[in-house]
């Protein structure tokens, strides 16, 4: 089972990578606002080189 000496560090590395990414995100203020991102992603981009281009409904 010596493979565990390789797999465990990799898994821990991935875990630490995740922790680092999480801390980075918190420090960058990624999670300061947990309300508006969900709404803002719904706003469709309006092309500036076209008129009357609304999101197409099926």
């Amino acid at each position, binding site marked *: *089972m*010596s*493979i*565990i*000496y*390789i*797999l465990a560090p*990799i*898994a821990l590395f*991935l*875990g630490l*990578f*995740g922790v680092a*990414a*999480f801390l980075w*995100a918190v420090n960058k*203020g*990624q*999670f300061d*606002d*947990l*309300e508006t*991102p*969900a*709404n*803002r*992603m*719904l706003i469709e*981009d*309006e*092309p*500036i*080189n*076209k008129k009357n*281009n609304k*999101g*197409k409904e*099926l």
Partner: protein
Amino acid sequence: MSTEQVSHQGEMEQFSYDDKVVKKYILASLFWGFAALLAGVTIAFQLSSWKFNFGLEWLTFGRLRPLHTNAAIFAFVGNAIFAGVFYSLQRLAKARLFNSFMANFQFWLWQLIIAGGGLSLLLGYSHGKEYAELEWPFDIAIAIAWVLFGVNILGTLWKRREKHIYVAIWFYISTFVTVAVLHIVNSIEIPVSLMKSYPVYAGVQDALVQWWYGHNAVAFFLTTPFLGLMYYFVPKAANRPVYSYRLSIIHFWSLIFLYIWAGPHHLLYSTLPEWAQTVGMVFSVALWAPSWGGMINGLLTLRGAWDKVRRDPVLKFLATAVTFYGMATFEGPLMSIKSVNHLAHFTDWVVGHVHSGTIGWNYMMVAGIFYFMIPRIWNTTLYSVKLANLQFWTATIGLLMYMMSMWTAGITQGLMWRALDDGGRLVYPQFIETVVKIIPMYWVRAFGGVLILIGFMFMLYNIFKTIQQAKKEEEPVYQAPALSSAKPEAHAGTHRKLEGMPMVFTILALLAILVGSLIELVPTLTSHKYLAQKTFMKPYSPLELVGRDVYIKEGCYVCHSQLVRPSPDEYIRYGTVSLAEEHVYDRPFQWGSRRIGPDLARVGGKYNHMWHYKHMIDPRAVTPGSIMPVYDWLETKKYDHKTLRKKMKVMASLGVPYSEDEIDNAIENAKAQAMGIANELSESGVSKDIADKEMVALIAYLQKLGADVKQAIKDGKVIDKAGGAE
């Protein structure tokens, strides 16, 4: 920084999205999806009746099944991931794809891998490790394509004009990072020739690495990218924000921390140390929480919009997909519980489970996402809502037929295997009885598959007609404030420079990956700890080694396991429970995951050479009712002796105790052993000269299986027992 500052300070920038490459990935996914389903339906019929193997070596179940799984996962779903991620990422980041050339290069490389890889599987080039069957040149190409994908994700994020990284993107990043690591670690192998290699891991070690990879291929290829896509496309299609953005953040972080540990649930009751099995089981059960948290979050996004689900095929597919995700992630942890797993493992229950995931979750998601994207990027409307609805119902009914027949077949066969009478004897001592019993279910499954395939063809036609009526229009241009001008960060200068040098950035990322994989590789290659120094196991003889490669080439592991679990029924049916030690020379391990035929770990010495010969030429001559394909080309194809010395040298470099003499005399040694088997066969009445054919090599290997363990029991080195792995 608030959005207000952006509007005060930010300069407006104009940009457009690269939807051309998205279109390519969509079309590729549809093309390969059809191929994957066609292969799936074919192998389903092959299990209903062996005649559907057509007597052709390239189309036997053992070779087509890996083609089906690889095509479904990497070709159909893979291309759909690239399409969905590139579409949504650009819009969420308000930035054009980092590098279109790279995305196109990745596209063609990926299609080349699929076409070449598919062909190589039909020709019998295989690693013999599930979902990782492609040989080493393809492994390298996959790593390159995958790094290009990741560089494009990260590069687009550097260029983003939206500060907040929406939750979907987190799922995309974790997909890239984890799949890269898993693929590289599981693919460390030493080439023998252009299309043959051996993994550096052996036996139990190989099994653990393989299922650590295999389970996470499900987790990070079929789940996390699609959860990201769910968090983008479900709110977009319903035009409602996700039920709880907070929950989605918790969902993401908890899911990725739990998933990576769940792999050993594929190895319960194996010779993997018990603590590792328990860890795998506990984490799998814990996955219930984040999985259902995400599922509920997706479904509740549709609160107040359920009327749309009735009308809009996009939402119909997406809502059903999320429902199937909930079902599959309920079933998965359940099957990871050891006692349940003992019944479910090696049966069709597992097959039903993976299809509720891949068809119910992935295919339904892909259909919904494609119906959402295609009218938008081709600037048109969907050709026929009716046809999409028809597709939805054929797919759903087909899938339900599939799942229910496989549940029934799996539980029936599992119960028959373990049934003991009052005297402690097997109620169904003949394995074939348990196969014949479930063949009606195989027919139901095959017709369910046909319905799914027909539904897919409706989608192909619908999309073809939709694209046909597309209006040509100039590429839309959008504008948004630049992110960096809003608030210059301390080290923004370096970022900006990197952005200006895409090639440098790419090379740096590649280097990082290569260094990472080297760090993994070196200790493995230099360590001889993997081999038991003193063992009762004798290394494979040259002929047995060649025979083992024939076994792998024909995909025997697809239907036959090599693992006797510690329970009375398995002990009675097969023999001594498997030991960790007996796999020390197995590169790759061949424990298998499904017993369509009986376990072979103890088959050595059970039958004479002639039985095996007859069984390969006409399985039904020795086992009436058998569904095994005919393997008559084994007595006409010569076994490969040219690479034999090289194979043994590679094995010796990995620590297998082959002496230089043995390696030098390998070919003569193999010939002598082959002659012995051939002579015995000709005495039994085989008139053909088959001493240099694959048949004798395979028989030599089969007779070796379990032989050393049986000898060790005779010599008193190993205690023959039913329970407890060691």
